[in-house]
């Protein structure tokens, strides 16, 4: 089982992951062949609409997929070890110690009946040999690190005595208290006040740098991604559409969906009549179209997009799954490509409009004759 396939030396390597939910009306494929890798200490953002499978990917990595969901294919390697088929006890020892988790809602992720200190100490003692006293000292140190004032007093308080932002700090302390190599943060700021969001993201970023932890940051907040991440992975309907360095993906996206996603963020100081949006909605899992999942909403879709699933291919410094890039120099400037595409499309529209006009006039003539 220990087939050491750490060819690239990546900390986390997901290969062709497929997650399925068997239902009465057939099997739903929630994650369809995702491949990702994460270097030690790197921050990878995972973006996409709700239901794209971002959180599910994170859940699968931590081995907490709930029935009836199951990993139907692919492999997950962590630190050179295959972990998707580990026995549950071995996986449990990995969770918390090697892979920390941060959940979305700090108001519900802490047990209301246990003091913050007890939850910290319990986690520390599960994964280390520290004595209760040492564990307590470590817990206080963690609370200090996450910026909780007067940690010696606060440690014995209960979650309800903390504000939302403070609770998320506690959650971060819990995730990092035994120096995991990887932290999976599932929308860590979505439930927080806007004013607190930046602080929490900042804290997460600095602390992970200090602890040397890599982060998989699941979010739909592009601002957070742009500020925090080294690389971004964009998901759509259970598939990965584009992965690349954050600047490239945000500024010069290669996939029409990513371009739509980035275009939909209004910029400060720019007056716009209408907010840009991508027409339509993400397909339900039971109705994912043939070919590229994005084709019904894609302005550039061709016959091929409706037939064949595009493969993930190298493009520039990232990867993209789109037929538009088939046969195009992978280092071509995406902005220029899309400009040409738009021009070509406009020309075609005009030609069609012209055709229509000719037809109409012919018809009109025919009537008169």
């Amino acid at each position, binding site marked *: 089982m220990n087939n050491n396939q750490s060819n690239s030396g990546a900390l986390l390597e997901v290969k062709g992951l497929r997650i399925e939910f068997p239902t009465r009306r057939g099997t739903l494929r929630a994650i369809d062949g995702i491949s990702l890798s994460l270097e030690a200490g790197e921050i990878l953002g995972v973006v996409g609409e709700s239901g794209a499978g971002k959180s599910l990917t994170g859940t699968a990595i931590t081995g907490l997929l709930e029935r009836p969901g199951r990993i139907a294919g692919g492999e997950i390697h962590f630190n050179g070890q295959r972990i998707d088929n580990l026995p549950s006890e071995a996986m449990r020892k990995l969770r918390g110690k090697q892979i920390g988790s941060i959940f979305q809602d700090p108001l519900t992720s802490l*047990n209301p*009946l*246990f003091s913050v200190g007890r939850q910290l100490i319990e986690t520390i003692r599960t994964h280390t040999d520290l004595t209760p006293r040492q564990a307590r000292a470590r817990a206080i140190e963690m609370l200090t690190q996450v910026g909780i004032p007067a940690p010696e007093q606060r440690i014995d308080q209960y979650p309800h005595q903390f504000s939302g932002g403070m609770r998320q700090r506690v959650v971060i302390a819990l995730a990092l208290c035994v120096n995991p190599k990887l932290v999976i943060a599932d929308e860590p700021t979505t439930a927080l006040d806007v004013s607190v969001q930046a602080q929490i993201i900042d804290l997460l970023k600095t602390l992970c740098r200090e602890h040397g932890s890599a982060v998989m940051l699941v979010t739909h907040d592009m601002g957070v991604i742009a500020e925090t991440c080294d690389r971004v992975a964009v998901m759509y309907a259970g598939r990965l559409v584009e992965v690349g360095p954050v600047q490239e993906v945000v500024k010069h996206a290669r996939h029409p969906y990513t371009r739509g996603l980035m275009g939909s963020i209004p910029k400060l100081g720019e007056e716009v009549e209408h907010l840009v949006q991508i027409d339509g909605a993400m397909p339900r899992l039971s109705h994912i179209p043939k070919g590229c999942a994005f084709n019904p909403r894609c302005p550039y879709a061709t016959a091929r997009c409706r037939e064949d699933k595009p493969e993930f291919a190298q493009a520039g410094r990232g990867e993209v799954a789109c037929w538009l890039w088939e046969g195009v120099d992978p280092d071509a400037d995406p902005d220029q490509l899309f400009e040409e595409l738009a021009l070509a499309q406009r020309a075609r529209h005009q030609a069609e409009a012209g055709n229509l006009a000719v037809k109409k006039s012919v018809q009109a003539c025919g009537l008169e004759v």
Partner: protein
Amino acid sequence: MLSFLIRRLGQSLLVMLAVALLAFSMFRYVGDPVTSMLSQNASVEEREQLRDSLGLSEPLYVQFSTFVVQAAQGDFGISYRNQRPVSELIAERMPATLELVAVAFVISLLVGVPMGVYSALKPHSWLSHVFQTLSLIGISLPTFVTGILLILTFSVTLNWLPSFGRGEVVNIGWWSTGLFTASGLKSLILPGIMLGLFQVTLIMRLVRAEMMEVLRTDYIRFARARGLSNRAVNFGHALKNTLMPVITIIGLQLGAMIAFAIITETVFQWPGMGFLFIQAVSFVDIPVMSAYLLLVSLIFVVINMIVDMMYFMLDPRLCADRGTANSH
């Protein structure tokens, strides 16, 4: 917390007063006690004399206040039938009922909670299905039927256990106990099971539903994500959260068990308060009935207060620093 307690105490007093009014009005409206106490050929003078000596000729509010004051001192008058103080009668019978209820309560907790926890943790195992089916039977069978079936099997057919009475009892002060003799213990088994069976099924279903709910919460998922062992998650975290709402119901059920031990006591001829009450009803022995009514409601009120206080001990969210802000 103190102000909460005081308010709770005030409410309890009001409840007790209302019950006292009910108990008192029984004297007025459920037949004339004088008729039932004297023989049919008693003269009018004798009747008037008895009426005066019982204080029945006083104005109503005077009668009620004397009733309340005396009841508060544990004086419920004299049983019409036994011609002995009601308090004595009840004190004699109380240990039997309380021992029976205690046994049934322990059975219901020891069996119900583990069954509920097991079927919440392993909802798809065959044993959980067996538990579910059994609990359905237990919850739908009337208690007297299960009691009679128990007697039929274990007393009549197998002849293992006695079918009535308390067996030999030992007196410790005024408390008579059946816990120290073999026949006393044997006699407790069947009625204990009969009284506890319904509670077992109730507690099992409650614990199961509550625990499944808790296991789905974020903090349990987060506890798993922190790599805590299954034992720590299930029994350290989930069980404590599960028991919070369960305690309320269990507490109220304890009161109900004391009050409704009547049926069990009748089936097993158990010399407890419930049996006393049933006898009192058939003889229209109103002082006994009203005393029983007051006593049962007092027990309910006290248990309710204890449950509320346990909430304070268990749930840090209700504790000192916020005092009354969040109490219900």
